[in-house]
Structure formats: C-alpha cells, structure tokens
C-alpha cells in the first residue's frame, strides 16, 4: 500500500489518520471474568473494525453487560487482552476509556433532572469547559446527527427518548472512535428506533465503530453488519445477521427455537374483574406524571395490556391500582366493589393480586427466605397465622408448593430471595400471587430482565391464569410481549390512556404513534 491510498482510506474512515484502516478498532482476546459462583465471561473474543456496527447478542445473564463494562473500564477482567487500534491497552477506569475515545450509552440513564441539558453534559466532561460555548456545540452536534435538543431545557421536562439523546450527544462531544449502546431501544417507540438507527448509520459512515448490545433479533438484522452471539458467558457464534434468519439467531442465542405462547378461547363468564372510572390523580413525585381521566375495564378471562414508555404515568397508575396510593372510592372497582379508598392490604383481601416491576426490594425482601417472602402477601391464606403468631411450617409448605408448581430453580424454601436469578424470583412472585386465587391480577413488566425460557413460561402462565376466569392487566414496555399475550391493548402516554383495542385491530406502528407523546411528535 502506498502512503497516498493509506491516507485517503483513513479519510474515508473519518478519524485517526495515522492508523492503518485494516486494523481492528477494538479487539478482545480470551477475556475472562469470574464472580463468586459464576463465570460472567469465559474466554470471550471479538473484534470491531472502524465504521462497523457490531451486535453483541445474547439473553439476560449471557455476560454482555460485563463484557461492555470491561471495555469501558468499570470492571477489570481476570484474564485476557484488550487491543485498542492494534495496541495492547489496559482500561483502568471510565475516564481512561473516554480519553481513548470510547463512549458508552447506558441502559439506565444517569442524568440530573433539575439541571439543564448542557449542565448535565458539562458534568461528564473531563476537561474544563465554558457553558455558553458548550451549549452552542451541543446544539450543532445534536442537529448534525439528527438528535435535536434544546441545550437549555431542564432534563425533567424531557421525554425518555430525548434523555437518551442527551446521553448520546454527551458521548459524541468527545469525538468517540467507539460507541457502546446497551439495549438502547428498550425505552423507544418503533418510530424513534428508526430515527436512532439513521443516526447510528451516519456515525458509522464517518468511521465510528459501534457496539450494539441487544436481545431483539429483528433490530440486529436491520442495523448490524456483524454479530457476536453469547450464551452463559461464552461466545456461541459469530454471524452476519443480514444473512441469518431470526430463527437461526435465536438458536445461537438460546440453544433452541424461540418458544411461542398459546392463547386458547375463553368461554366462561366475562364479568368485569377490574375497572377504572374517570380516574385523575396527582403524582406524589415532583417529577412524576399526573393521571388524567383514565377509564379502563378488565374482564374475567382476558389479558389487557397497557403499552407505553415508563415515566408516562405507569408508576402512578400502578400505585393507584394496587392501593399504595388511595383515591376516590368509585374510581377503582374490583369485581364491581368500589375499592378506591382501600389500602393495598384491604384490596388483596378482596381478591386483587399485584406483581410489581421491582422484584427485589418491593415484590420481595432481598435478605429474607422465600418462605418468609411468601408471607408478604400469603399471610391471609387459611392456616398461616393463629392469634397473631405465624405458622412457619405452613409458610414453608406454601413456599414449597409455589416452587414446585412454578418451576422456581432455587435451593429450597429457605434460600434468600436475592440469591435467585431475576427469572426465577419473578416466577416465585407471580406464583405466590396466583396461589392466592385472585379475581384480578396486575403485572408490571412481567419479563423485564428475565431469560427467554422463563419469559415464555411466565407469559403462558398469565394467559392460562386469565383463561381460568381471572382478569389480567399487564403493563409493559415490550410491545412484542404485549402483542403475544394480550387480547386488548391500550397505550398510556403522558398520563392519558387510549381506549383498549383488540389486538387484531391494531399493530405496532399505530401503537407506536400513540406511545410517542406530544413532546416527540414536535421534534419528529
């Protein structure tokens, strides 16, 4: 190669004129990371070329996040090598990673709600800055990449999609050579996902390498040039996703075909199990969303889904439905009985069951045994307590039955809730609630952070529960999941609920439009 071509190729790649473009931007060799009791990364190797969009595909617990943390310097590997632009490098901490040109957009944002966009970005800069000049740069960079942002807006007034833009722009300001995105679409509408993909393709065309972490197969097929598939901490394959089918990618990811749920017809009585009538409620959280005139009916025998991005009133609606926040008595009806003024315990007495989004700390007490965690809601079952004293034998028996019936993998009823994986704990909590024979059951994010096998089991369990004559309400950010299990789907956006449509009469596209609140339509 002559120096001339070398230079022009480097120009094409956009940055770093001194490097040979054939060299991988990042190459991991035999990375190993052990945690007590688990090998998170076992001999993992992958490489990313300049301008390549590389997917890291795997289900929850496959070791993707650990690997990214090693690249970004928040975790140190126990063994293996990291080559950056052809040179062996140790990334000691995130500041060192940013200095190298590695940017990361986390799944959960780290923004201060009371500060402006520019102030938030300034906080992450390692070098001295001038706020005014920075605001100008924020504006120009955000517009250049189709991520429009007002630098002076306060973060609490931004939609989730806009907050993600802040995180991305924050990375772009540091001229990254490698951008890592961890499950970036979990908070986006289908339309916003398309816009994000345009931005990422533009960045790639300028030579930025992108590591895209996801478990969503169709997104990876759509966006990525190559993929590394992980399972149980090991690499199970490298593939070109455009040449694979979702089925073949799924087999690499979970080792078998994707399970499919069955929704049989329901013929029993379809009285109203749970009803919300003209509910308006102010949020207790100063940055929360107030609920505006919400009406909803969930009948026995059906699964109703509420789609929408978290932060649009989901937490507030759940608190009102579960009884953690009380409202006017006639705003919430359980089996035609007004319960709006009753607290969570009293509503459970009347046959309401609830599975919250946070499993550890809310649905279960982390350090307590499963047997004790069963008591959290099952204490009202017959034989659980006499004269205020607990019957521990009955508790253990209940927990054991729950473990067997719902296939909870654990070391018995005495194992601590926090020792279980997310999926198994969720099976236990869902099982505990189902075993109270509820009339209506509310489930928030049923499969969040749960592996594919357990997700399928949980989804089928919820469908079967509804077909036994229970009204089931599911609140989820995962549209695919709602379309798989629900009979009717409504959308909660900015505290307002759209009418619940039978799923045959709607599709992801129109649900996505409803999900995108006013804020995102303005900039779209």
């Amino acid at each position, binding site marked *: 190669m002559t120096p001339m071509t070398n230079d022009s190729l480097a120009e094409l790649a956009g940055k770093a004129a001194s490097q040979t473009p054939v060299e991988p931007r990042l190459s991991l060799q035999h990375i190993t990371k052990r*945690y*007590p*009791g688990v090998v998170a990364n076992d001999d993992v190797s992958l490489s990313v070329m300049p301008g390549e969009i590389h997917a890291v595909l795997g289900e929850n617990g496959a070791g993707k996040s650990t690997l990214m943390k090693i690249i970004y310097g928040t975790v*140190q*590997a*126990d*063994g293996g090598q990291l080559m950056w632009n052809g040179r*062996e490098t*140790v990334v*000691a901490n995130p500041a060192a990673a940013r200095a190298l040109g590695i940017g990361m957009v986390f799944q959960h944002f780290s923004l201060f709600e009371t500060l402006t966009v520019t102030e938030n970005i300034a906080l992450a800069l390692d070098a001295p800055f001038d706020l005014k000049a920075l605001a100008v740069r924020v504006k120009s960079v955000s517009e250049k990449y189709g991520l429009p942002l007002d630098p002076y807006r306060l973060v609490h007034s931004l939609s989730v999609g806009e907050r993600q833009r802040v995180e991305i722009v924050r990375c772009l300001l540091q001229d990254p050579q490698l951008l890592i995105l961890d499950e970036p679409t979990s908070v986006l509408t289908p339309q916003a996902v398309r816009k994000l993909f345009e931005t990422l393709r533009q960045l790639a065309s300028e030579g930025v390498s992108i590591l895209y972490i996801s478990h969503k197969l169709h997104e990876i097929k759509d966006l990525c040039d190559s993929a590394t598939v992980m399972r149980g901490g090991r690499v199970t394959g490298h593939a070109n996703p455009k040449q694979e089918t979702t089925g073949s990618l799924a087999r690499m990811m979970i080792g078998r075909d994707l399970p499919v749920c069955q929704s049989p017809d329901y013929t029993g009585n379809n009285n109203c199990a749970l009803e919300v009538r003209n509910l308006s409620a102010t949020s207790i959280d100063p940055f929360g969303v107030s609920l505006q005139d919400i009406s909803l009916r969930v009948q026995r025998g059906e699964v109703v889904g509420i789609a929408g991005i978290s932060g649009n009133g989901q937490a507030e609606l759940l608190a009102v439905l*579960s*009884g*953690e926040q009380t409202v006017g008595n006639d705003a919430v009806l359980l089996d035609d009985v007004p319960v709006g003024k009753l*607290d*969570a*315990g*009293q*509503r*459970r007495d009347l046959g309401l069951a*609830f599975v*919250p989004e*946070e499993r550890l*700390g*809310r*649905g*279960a*007490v*982390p*350090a*307590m045994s499963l047997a*004790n965690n069963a*008591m*959290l*809601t099952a*204490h009202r079952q017959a034989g659980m*307590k006499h004269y*205020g*004293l*607990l019957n*521990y034998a009955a508790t253990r028996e209940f927990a054991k039955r729950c473990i067997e019936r719902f296939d909870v993998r654990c070391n018995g009823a005495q194992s*601590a809730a*926090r*020792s279980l994986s997310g999926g198994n704990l969720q099976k236990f909590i869902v099982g505990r609630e189902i075993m109270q024979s509820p009339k209506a059951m509310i489930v928030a994010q049923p499969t969040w952070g749960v592996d594919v096998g357990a997700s399928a089991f949980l989804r089928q369990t919820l469908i079967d529960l509804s077909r036994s004559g229970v009204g089931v309400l599911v609140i989820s950010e995962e549209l695919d999941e709602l379309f798989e299990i629900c009979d009717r789907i409504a959308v909660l956006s900015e505290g307002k609920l759209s009418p619940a449509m039978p799923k045959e009469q709607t599709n992801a596209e129109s649900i996505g439009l409803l999900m995108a609140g006013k804020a995102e339509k303005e900039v779209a």
Partner: protein
Amino acid sequence: MPLLEPRANPSVVMQWAAPLIAIGLTLLVGALLFYSLHVSPLKAFYVFFIEPLETSNGWSELVLKASPLILIAQGLALGFRARIYNIGAEGQLLVGAICASGVAIYSNGAETWWVLPGMVIAGAIGGAFWGAIPAWLKTHFNAEETLTTLMLTYVATLLLSWLVSVPWRDPDGSNFPQSIMFNDSALFTLLFDGLRINTSVFITIAAVLIFWVFVSRSFTAFQISVGGQAPAAAHYAGFSSRKTVWLSLVISGLTAGIAGAGEVAGPVGQLTLSLSPGYGYAAIIVAWVGRLHPLGIVLSGILMAMIYIGGDAGQVSLQLPSAITGLFQGMLLFFLLGADAFVNYRLKRRKPRALIKEATA
C-alpha cells in the same frame, strides 16, 4: 481504590463473629491503654473482669446492672429492626422513673400491696408516653426520630432536675436535690439478705421470654422487620409504616420506663438526679452487640454490666479515671460497627499479577 467489595450473600459467620472480634479488639486496645497508663494489663483485666465475680455481692451487682440494660435493649432492638433509631431511651427511663416516683411519693405511708405494681405501671406509661411523642412527630411532621428522641432526653433531664429541686424535694433532706426515701411497700423485695439484687429481675426474665416469642413468631414482628429491611416491600404488602413507627417507639419507651421504675423502686430507692449511669445509652450498644436478638441481648447485657462494674473497680483499686467505663463502651461499639462492615463486604482480592504488570508498564 476501594478496599472492600460486596459479598454475594451476607456472611452468617461474620454476623456472629463480629461481636467476638469487637470484644477481642476492645480487650487488645484496652491492654495497650492500661500499658500506657503504667498499669499491668493482666492486673487490670483481673481487677476489671475477675475480681468483681469472686464475691456473691459482685454477682448480685452484675445481675442488678445487667437487668435494666437487657430490658431496655429488648425494646430498642425491636425498633432497630424496623430502622427506627430511638436513641433517647435514657430520657424515657427518666420519665418512667419520675412517674413511678410520683406514685410512691403521693401514696407515701399507705402500706398496701398496689403501690409497687402501680409504680411499675406508671413507669411503663410514662416511658411509653415519652416514646409516643417522637412517634407522633415522625408520623405527622416526618421529624427524624434520632433527633427528637435525643432532644427529649434533655427535656426529661431538666424535668427531673426541677422536680427534685422544687415540688418533690425531701423537706428533711438538708436541701439536697432528691426526693424522700421510699418505704418498703414502694420497693422491690430483696432476693437475699445483704445483697442488692431484687425481684425486679423477674420482670426482665419475663420480658426476654415475651420478646423472644414475639420476635421469632409474631406476624407484627415480621411486618416490622419487613418495614426495616425493605420499606417499599412493606408498602407493597400493605403493611402500615405508621403502625411500625408507633409500635417501635412506644414499646421501646415502655421497656425503658419500666427499667426506670425498677431503679427508683430498687437500688436507688428514691428519685435523685443520678439515678441512671447512662443505661439508656449503653443499651443501644447492648442491642447491637447482641445482634438485636432477644437471647444475644442477654449475653451482651451481661458483658456491658461487667464493663460498668469493672470500671468502678478500676477507679477504686487502680486509680483509673472514671472515663474508663465510657471508653470501653465506645471502643466496643466502634469495633463492632467496623467488624459489621465485613458481614456484607469483604476485602478486595488482589488482581492477577499479569494485569498489574501491564497497568504499570
């Protein structure tokens, strides 16, 4: 770089080893301290921990001091499980003592059976009331109970000081700030002639048993510990956090109040300014060292009583300053809190050599 990293599971071994490590370190540092004061550590420990137990009087004093500590710590531990930090048991003890003394003073001369039970009940109500004030402040104004309970202790001290100086001062007491000496119907019966140990110890024994059953088996105690460990889970389950606040503070006030009644109707025998050598504060340490467990508290209460008695003996036999008692109490808590960190954390393992080399290269 942080030295500690979180453990996957809390260490059960460390949970029970931590108090032993704390005791060991306290003795070690105590030995160094004695050494620097030119006192032979061996002799000092003999005076502190062995000599007092060589006489029946020593054993009597040990039980007499351990009893209120254990009683108060039982109540405090219940609140600590709920993360309700009542650090004003001293004040609740004083108000309990005041109310009990009120019964004794106004019934003076009445040689009837109900005076002593009346004193205990009045003490319990007084202590519970003094605990109920911070509970009300917390549930209505979200006032931090650590501050309100502590401040109410100063109020109780001043109240006591006024009572013994003005309305309840013994007219024949040569102007000393103290009440009349109570007569026998207002005093617990001595168990043995010539020893100060009295029947109030049975109240403590009963309390230990009641708390043991309550903590290990009752649904209310389960709700309290859920509220302490995971407030959101308690909220989710519909357990009332207000009920937890009220129960924790009222019950811990109640046990402290009974302990106060036990002091004025026991070894002190009257209402005076110096009726408690800081039992209310020491009981906080007793509760923690006893791992908030009703039986663990019995052991730690006895240990704390030994420190009290040993401190007295050290002052007499070795001319050590009186601060020595507080010093030992403080070291015990200090080392316990330090050792407790290792229940949920462990020392970070060193990185593999290869990576260190690369990092420095």
